[in-house]
Every structure is written in C-alpha cells, then in structure tokens.
C-alpha cells in the first residue's frame, strides 16, 4: 500500500505529520511519500519534500493507493478526479495551522457527501491509517465543473 501525504503550499502541518510518522515507525510501514511545506517537523520514518511540482504531484498521486491530506480543496478535488480514497484532517486555528476553521466545515461537509474520510484528531488519524487498506474511493468525477455551472457561465460570457 502506497500512501501520499499532502499538506498544501501554504503552512506546514506538523501535528498531522508527527502523527503519521509515529504511526509509520510503530508499524514499520515505510511506503509513504509526503509533501510537508516549510515544516519544522521533518518525518524520520519516510521520504518527504517541502514543495512539489504539478508534474511530480500528478505522478505521486497516480502511484498512491491512499491519499492523506489537510482539508484543502486542491487535494480533495484531485482525489475525486483520480478516484483515490482520501483521509483528510482539517487544519485548526487553535494550533495556528490556519487563519480560521473553515477546513473543519469543509471536512465535515465532504465527509457527509461520502467524498472523504474525515479525521479530527491524531488518534483518529492513526486509526484511519490502520484501516486504510480497506478504504474504497468515492466514484470518480469528470474533468470539468457541473454541466449546470458550465452552461450558466457560457450564457453569462456570451451575453
């Protein structure tokens, strides 16, 4: 099982990284590649990089069986496009991981729609990783927005 971990281009997400690293070391599981941003915590249990080109991101995404990510739309949409199971952990303002708690609302809403597995603590994340091999992806989405939105935009653009 290959795991690709993504924290996005803005802030690091050490709380998530530490939990994954702990889990990986405990399990002796090393087939993980992580994009960690300018993190102060660099995982010892697996390979990581601060930033990643869109091309390498695509390669890593396709190779992976499971995606683990902050609740950022870039990664969530990519997972839906590639039909990969995804575990998301929202960044929280109380730990200075984001300026506000909108990722919490994103995670909850997308979990409710069955698009992601949302976890809200380090313990929940590690439990989800324990069961990751049984995760099923949500049905793949197409390459574009909903036809309703596209038709509406076309109308607005040509008006």
């Amino acid at each position: 099982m290959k795991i690709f971990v993504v924290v996005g281009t803005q802030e690091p997400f050490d709380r998530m990284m530490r939990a994954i690293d702990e889990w990986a070391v405990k399990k002796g599981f090393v087939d993980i590649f992580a994009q960690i941003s300018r993190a102060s915590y660099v995982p010892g249990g697996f390979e990581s990089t601060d930033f990643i080109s869109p091309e390498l991101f695509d390669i890593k995404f396709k190779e992976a069986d499971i995606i683990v990510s902050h609740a950022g739309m870039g990664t969530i949409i990519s997972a839906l496009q590639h039909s990969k199971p995804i575990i998301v952990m929202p960044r929280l303002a109380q730990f200075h991981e984001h300026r506000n708690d909108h990722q919490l609302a994103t995670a909850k809403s997308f979990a409710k729609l069955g698009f992601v597995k949302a976890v809200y603590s380090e313990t929940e994340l590690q439990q989800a990783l324990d069961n990751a091999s049984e995760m099923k992806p949500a049905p793949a989405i197409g390459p574009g927005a909903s036809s309703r939105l596209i038709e509406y935009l076309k109308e607005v653009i040509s008006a």
Partner: protein
Amino acid sequence: MTIKRKKILAVASGGGHWIQLLRLRPAFEGCEVVYMSTHEGYQKQVSDSAFHAVTDANRWNKLKLIVMSFEVIWVVIKVRPDIIISTGAAPGLLAIIWGKLTLKKTIWLDSIANVEKISMSGRLAKPFATIHMTQWEQLATNAPTVFKGNVIT
C-alpha cells in the same frame, strides 16, 4: 464579417483555487483565455493560453499585497479582457475590483471550500462582481449571490 472572440482573464491563487478555475474551462470554449495565478509552474497546465504569474500574497502580508496589486492591475490593463472571472482569492479580488472600475464584466465564483460562509475575499468582491456565485445552495441567501452548481458534480 468576423465576430470578435471574447477575451477572458481567468484568475486564481495557487492550490485549490487554481484547480477549481481549471474545471471551468469547458465554459471558455470559443473564447480567448488568458490565465493569471501565483506559480510560474502552472503555465504548463494551460500551455494553449497566455499565462501571467504574479506575486503570491494574502491580506496578512501587506508589502507583498501591494506589490501583487500593482502586478494584477498591470496585467488587467495589458490584457484588456472583456470578462474577468475568479475562484479566489486575493489576486482575483483585485482583478475584479479593477475590472469593475474599468467597466468589464466580472464573475466571482466563491471556492467550494467555503461551506458555512462566503470567504473574506468573496465578501469583499461582492459589490464589484457583475455575477457573484457560491458553490453551496445554503449560502445563496443574500442577493445578488447566486447558486448555479459547483465545480465537482
């Protein structure tokens, strides 16, 4: 007689905003599209269009924000689009403000990440957007904000 193709300036900051913008591409068919974002590396994803990179900034870094503002305005002046569309955040907001002041058609599509309330940039963009959209039906309660579908279904 030839009909002049509409020129669209499509703007998004990096990451999720950019991915959402790219999912709108089928709507741009038949138009000349110019993209603007915050990472040079994105150029390859829209290689059939012109692309401008501007400084990455948000409201927490005032100096970078000022630099980015000038860059964004310069691109809008140079490109002379008929329509400006953005999925967020700061560069899109600035492009839309400048676009509105120069009488362009402006379209704001708030990110699907904003489930409980419209983003700060989205709220600021509202008076400057010809069309102001949310991707969640429950947020389309204050006119003129409308819900017309989203980027994923």
